[in-house]
Protein backbone atom coordinates (compact mmCIF):
# COMPACT_ATOMS: atom_id res chain seq x y z
CA UNK A 1 0.00 0.00 0.00
CA UNK A 2 1.38 3.40 -0.95
CA UNK A 3 1.98 5.97 1.74
CA UNK A 4 -0.76 8.58 1.84
CA UNK A 5 -0.18 12.31 2.09
CA UNK A 6 -0.16 14.18 5.38
CA UNK A 7 0.41 17.70 6.62
CA UNK A 8 1.23 19.14 10.03
CA UNK A 9 2.50 22.45 11.30
CA UNK A 10 4.53 23.81 14.16
CA UNK A 11 4.72 27.51 15.07
CA UNK A 12 7.78 29.10 16.67
CA UNK A 13 6.50 31.91 18.90
CA UNK A 14 7.90 35.29 19.92
CA UNK A 15 7.96 36.10 23.69
CA UNK A 16 4.71 38.06 23.23
CA UNK A 17 2.99 34.99 21.78
CA UNK A 18 2.94 36.16 18.17
CA UNK A 19 4.14 33.76 15.49
CA UNK A 20 7.80 34.21 14.60
CA UNK A 21 8.09 31.33 12.14
CA UNK A 22 5.75 28.63 10.85
CA UNK A 23 7.03 25.18 9.90
CA UNK A 24 4.71 23.20 7.64
CA UNK A 25 5.70 19.57 7.18
CA UNK A 26 4.38 17.58 4.22
CA UNK A 27 4.94 13.87 3.83
CA UNK A 28 3.95 10.95 1.66
CA UNK A 29 2.69 10.92 -1.87
CA UNK A 30 1.63 14.33 -3.25
CA UNK A 31 -0.28 13.12 -6.30
CA UNK A 32 -3.88 13.81 -7.33
CA UNK A 33 -5.35 11.85 -4.41
CA UNK A 34 -2.80 13.10 -1.92
CA UNK A 35 -3.40 16.74 -2.80
CA UNK A 36 -7.15 16.25 -2.42
CA UNK A 37 -6.40 15.40 1.20
CA UNK A 38 -4.10 18.30 2.04
CA UNK A 39 -4.46 21.18 -0.46
CA UNK A 40 -6.95 23.21 1.56
CA UNK A 41 -4.95 22.86 4.74
CA UNK A 42 -1.74 23.79 2.91
CA UNK A 43 -3.39 26.98 1.68
CA UNK A 44 -4.81 27.85 5.09
CA UNK A 45 -1.46 27.30 6.81
CA UNK A 46 0.76 29.09 4.31
CA UNK A 47 -1.21 31.67 2.38
CA UNK A 48 -3.42 33.50 4.87
CA UNK A 49 -1.04 35.40 7.14
CA UNK A 50 2.17 37.28 6.23
CA UNK A 51 4.56 34.89 7.98
CA UNK A 52 7.98 33.42 7.36
CA UNK A 53 7.16 29.83 6.38
CA UNK A 54 9.41 26.79 6.05
CA UNK A 55 7.80 24.18 3.80
CA UNK A 56 9.45 20.92 4.80
CA UNK A 57 9.43 18.37 1.94
CA UNK A 58 12.06 16.02 3.38
CA UNK A 59 9.56 13.18 3.84
CA UNK A 60 7.70 13.63 0.56
CA UNK A 61 8.09 10.42 -1.46
CA UNK A 62 6.47 11.64 -4.67
CA UNK A 63 5.77 15.18 -5.89
CA UNK A 64 3.50 15.43 -8.92
CA UNK A 65 2.80 18.62 -10.85
CA UNK A 66 -0.51 19.04 -9.02
CA UNK A 67 1.51 19.35 -5.81
CA UNK A 68 3.92 21.83 -7.39
CA UNK A 69 0.96 23.94 -8.55
CA UNK A 70 -0.38 24.06 -5.03
CA UNK A 71 3.02 25.08 -3.65
CA UNK A 72 3.39 27.83 -6.28
CA UNK A 73 -0.09 29.18 -5.52
CA UNK A 74 0.59 29.24 -1.78
CA UNK A 75 4.03 30.83 -2.18
CA UNK A 76 2.63 33.48 -4.50
CA UNK A 77 -0.25 34.32 -2.14
CA UNK A 78 2.16 34.44 0.80
CA UNK A 79 4.51 36.71 -1.13
CA UNK A 80 1.67 39.08 -2.02
CA UNK A 81 0.82 39.37 1.68
CA UNK A 82 4.40 40.16 2.58
CA UNK A 83 5.41 36.73 3.85
CA UNK A 84 8.19 34.49 2.62
CA UNK A 85 8.43 30.76 1.89
CA UNK A 86 11.57 28.62 2.00
CA UNK A 87 11.54 24.98 0.95
CA UNK A 88 13.49 22.49 3.07
CA UNK A 89 14.58 19.39 1.14
CA UNK A 90 17.24 17.58 3.14
CA UNK A 91 18.60 14.86 0.86
CA UNK A 92 15.39 14.30 -1.07
CA UNK A 93 16.98 14.05 -4.52
CA UNK A 94 13.91 13.10 -6.59
CA UNK A 95 11.84 15.97 -5.22
CA UNK A 96 14.82 18.32 -5.69
CA UNK A 97 15.20 17.21 -9.32
CA UNK A 98 11.46 17.60 -9.88
CA UNK A 99 11.42 21.17 -8.56
CA UNK A 100 14.60 22.11 -10.42
CA UNK A 101 13.19 20.73 -13.67
CA UNK A 102 10.26 23.10 -13.46
CA UNK A 103 12.38 26.12 -12.52
CA UNK A 104 10.78 26.52 -9.11
CA UNK A 105 14.17 26.57 -7.43
CA UNK A 106 14.75 29.96 -9.08
CA UNK A 107 11.65 31.57 -7.56
CA UNK A 108 11.28 29.85 -4.17
CA UNK A 109 14.49 29.40 -2.13
CA UNK A 110 15.36 25.72 -1.58
CA UNK A 111 17.84 24.54 1.05
CA UNK A 112 19.04 21.22 2.40
CA UNK A 113 19.59 22.08 6.07
CA UNK A 114 17.01 23.12 8.66
CA UNK A 115 19.26 25.80 10.21
CA UNK A 116 19.73 27.42 6.83
CA UNK A 117 15.99 27.26 6.17
CA UNK A 118 15.31 29.16 9.39
CA UNK A 119 17.93 31.80 8.61
CA UNK A 120 16.61 32.29 5.07
CA UNK A 121 12.95 32.41 6.14
CA UNK A 122 13.67 35.01 8.79
CA UNK A 123 16.03 37.11 6.64
Amino acid sequence: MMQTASIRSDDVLEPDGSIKLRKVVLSGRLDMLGMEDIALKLTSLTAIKPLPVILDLRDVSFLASIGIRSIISSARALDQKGGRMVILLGGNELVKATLESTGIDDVIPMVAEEDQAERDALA
Partner: protein
Amino acid sequence: MAPPHPDAPSLSVQPSPLELRRCSEWLTQHCQIRAVPPEPTGKLDLCLNEVLANLIDHGGAAEFTSPVDLTLELADCGDRGLATLTIVDAGPAFDPLSVSRGPLPRTLAEAEPGGLGLLLVHRFMDERSYQRAGDRNVLKLGVYFSKDP
Protein backbone atom coordinates in the same frame (compact mmCIF):
# COMPACT_ATOMS: atom_id res chain seq x y z
CA MET B 1 7.17 2.27 -34.09
CA ALA B 2 7.43 -1.41 -33.11
CA PRO B 3 4.63 -2.92 -30.99
CA PRO B 4 5.52 -3.97 -27.44
CA HIS B 5 6.88 -7.49 -26.95
CA PRO B 6 3.99 -9.87 -26.19
CA ASP B 7 5.72 -11.13 -23.03
CA ALA B 8 6.26 -7.63 -21.61
CA PRO B 9 4.26 -6.88 -18.45
CA SER B 10 1.11 -4.96 -19.20
CA LEU B 11 -1.81 -3.40 -17.38
CA SER B 12 -5.17 -2.13 -18.59
CA VAL B 13 -6.84 0.55 -16.44
CA GLN B 14 -9.65 3.05 -16.54
CA PRO B 15 -8.20 6.55 -16.37
CA SER B 16 -9.45 7.77 -13.03
CA PRO B 17 -7.74 9.33 -10.01
CA LEU B 18 -8.32 6.16 -8.02
CA GLU B 19 -6.41 4.11 -10.60
CA LEU B 20 -3.31 6.30 -10.62
CA ARG B 21 -1.82 4.61 -7.59
CA ARG B 22 -2.55 1.14 -8.93
CA CYS B 23 -0.61 2.10 -12.04
CA SER B 24 2.29 3.35 -9.92
CA GLU B 25 2.30 0.15 -7.85
CA TRP B 26 2.29 -1.97 -11.01
CA LEU B 27 5.16 0.05 -12.53
CA THR B 28 7.36 0.13 -9.43
CA GLN B 29 6.80 -3.57 -8.77
CA HIS B 30 7.87 -4.58 -12.29
CA CYS B 31 10.80 -2.16 -12.34
CA GLN B 32 11.99 -3.63 -9.04
CA ILE B 33 11.67 -7.20 -10.33
CA ARG B 34 13.78 -6.23 -13.36
CA ALA B 35 16.44 -4.43 -11.28
CA VAL B 36 15.69 -0.94 -12.56
CA PRO B 37 17.24 1.38 -9.93
CA PRO B 38 14.99 3.60 -7.76
CA GLU B 39 15.91 6.91 -9.42
CA PRO B 40 14.89 6.05 -13.00
CA THR B 41 11.92 4.13 -11.62
CA GLY B 42 10.82 7.26 -9.74
CA LYS B 43 11.16 9.40 -12.87
CA LEU B 44 9.19 6.93 -14.97
CA ASP B 45 6.55 6.72 -12.24
CA LEU B 46 6.25 10.51 -12.11
CA CYS B 47 5.92 10.82 -15.89
CA LEU B 48 3.31 8.03 -16.03
CA ASN B 49 1.36 9.87 -13.34
CA GLU B 50 1.57 13.14 -15.30
CA VAL B 51 0.43 11.59 -18.60
CA LEU B 52 -2.51 9.82 -16.93
CA ALA B 53 -3.45 12.95 -14.97
CA ASN B 54 -3.43 14.87 -18.24
CA LEU B 55 -5.77 12.29 -19.78
CA ILE B 56 -8.10 12.55 -16.78
CA ASP B 57 -8.07 16.35 -16.87
CA HIS B 58 -8.32 16.90 -20.62
CA GLY B 59 -9.47 13.67 -22.22
CA GLY B 60 -12.78 13.32 -23.98
CA ALA B 61 -15.63 10.99 -23.05
CA ALA B 62 -13.80 8.07 -24.69
CA GLU B 63 -11.16 8.33 -21.99
CA PHE B 64 -13.62 7.18 -19.39
CA THR B 65 -15.19 4.36 -21.37
CA SER B 66 -12.06 2.87 -22.93
CA PRO B 67 -9.16 1.57 -20.89
CA VAL B 68 -5.63 2.89 -21.07
CA ASP B 69 -3.11 0.15 -21.83
CA LEU B 70 0.33 0.23 -20.24
CA THR B 71 3.31 -1.92 -21.21
CA LEU B 72 6.79 -1.94 -19.68
CA GLU B 73 9.77 -3.15 -21.71
CA LEU B 74 13.43 -3.45 -20.80
CA ALA B 75 16.23 -3.29 -23.38
CA ASP B 76 19.92 -4.06 -23.04
CA CYS B 77 22.02 -1.17 -24.36
CA GLY B 78 25.55 -2.29 -23.53
CA ASP B 79 26.54 -0.92 -20.14
CA ARG B 80 23.12 0.65 -19.76
CA GLY B 81 19.55 -0.56 -19.67
CA LEU B 82 16.55 1.21 -21.15
CA ALA B 83 13.14 1.01 -19.47
CA THR B 84 10.38 1.96 -21.88
CA LEU B 85 6.78 2.51 -20.94
CA THR B 86 4.12 2.45 -23.68
CA ILE B 87 0.86 4.27 -22.91
CA VAL B 88 -2.05 3.67 -25.32
CA ASP B 89 -5.38 5.48 -25.05
CA ALA B 90 -8.48 5.87 -27.21
CA GLY B 91 -9.00 9.58 -26.71
CA PRO B 92 -8.93 12.28 -29.38
CA ALA B 93 -5.65 12.57 -31.26
CA PHE B 94 -3.24 14.44 -29.03
CA ASP B 95 0.54 14.52 -29.08
CA PRO B 96 1.64 15.65 -25.60
CA LEU B 97 5.22 15.92 -26.86
CA SER B 98 4.22 18.69 -29.27
CA VAL B 99 3.14 21.01 -26.49
CA SER B 100 5.66 23.80 -26.13
CA ARG B 101 6.16 25.82 -23.01
CA GLY B 102 7.72 29.20 -22.53
CA PRO B 103 10.96 29.89 -20.66
CA LEU B 104 11.30 28.92 -17.01
CA PRO B 105 10.04 31.58 -14.56
CA ARG B 106 12.40 34.24 -13.19
CA THR B 107 10.08 35.50 -10.47
CA LEU B 108 7.28 34.03 -8.38
CA ALA B 109 4.82 36.28 -10.22
CA GLU B 110 5.96 34.73 -13.53
CA ALA B 111 5.65 31.15 -12.32
CA GLU B 112 2.77 29.58 -14.23
CA PRO B 113 1.09 26.78 -12.34
CA GLY B 114 -0.03 25.06 -15.58
CA GLY B 115 1.86 22.85 -18.03
CA LEU B 116 4.33 21.52 -15.49
CA GLY B 117 3.47 17.85 -15.98
CA LEU B 118 4.43 17.73 -19.63
CA LEU B 119 7.52 19.79 -18.87
CA LEU B 120 8.57 17.05 -16.43
CA VAL B 121 8.08 14.45 -19.16
CA HIS B 122 10.41 16.41 -21.45
CA ARG B 123 13.02 16.89 -18.73
CA PHE B 124 13.02 13.41 -17.18
CA MET B 125 12.58 11.08 -20.14
CA ASP B 126 15.59 10.21 -22.33
CA GLU B 127 13.46 8.74 -25.13
CA ARG B 128 10.03 10.05 -26.16
CA SER B 129 7.85 9.27 -29.14
CA TYR B 130 4.22 9.67 -30.13
CA GLN B 131 2.18 8.07 -32.88
CA ARG B 132 -1.49 8.05 -33.80
CA ALA B 133 -2.26 4.42 -34.62
CA GLY B 134 -5.78 4.03 -35.95
CA ASP B 135 -8.05 5.55 -33.32
CA ARG B 136 -5.49 5.35 -30.52
CA ASN B 137 -2.70 7.54 -29.16
CA VAL B 138 0.53 5.61 -28.63
CA LEU B 139 3.07 7.34 -26.38
CA LYS B 140 6.43 5.76 -25.59
CA LEU B 141 8.58 7.08 -22.74
CA GLY B 142 12.04 5.68 -22.01
CA VAL B 143 14.69 6.24 -19.40
CA TYR B 144 18.26 4.88 -19.41
CA PHE B 145 19.90 3.49 -16.30
CA SER B 146 23.30 2.16 -15.34
CA LYS B 147 23.47 -1.62 -14.92
CA ASP B 148 26.26 -1.30 -12.37
CA PRO B 149 24.99 -1.99 -8.83
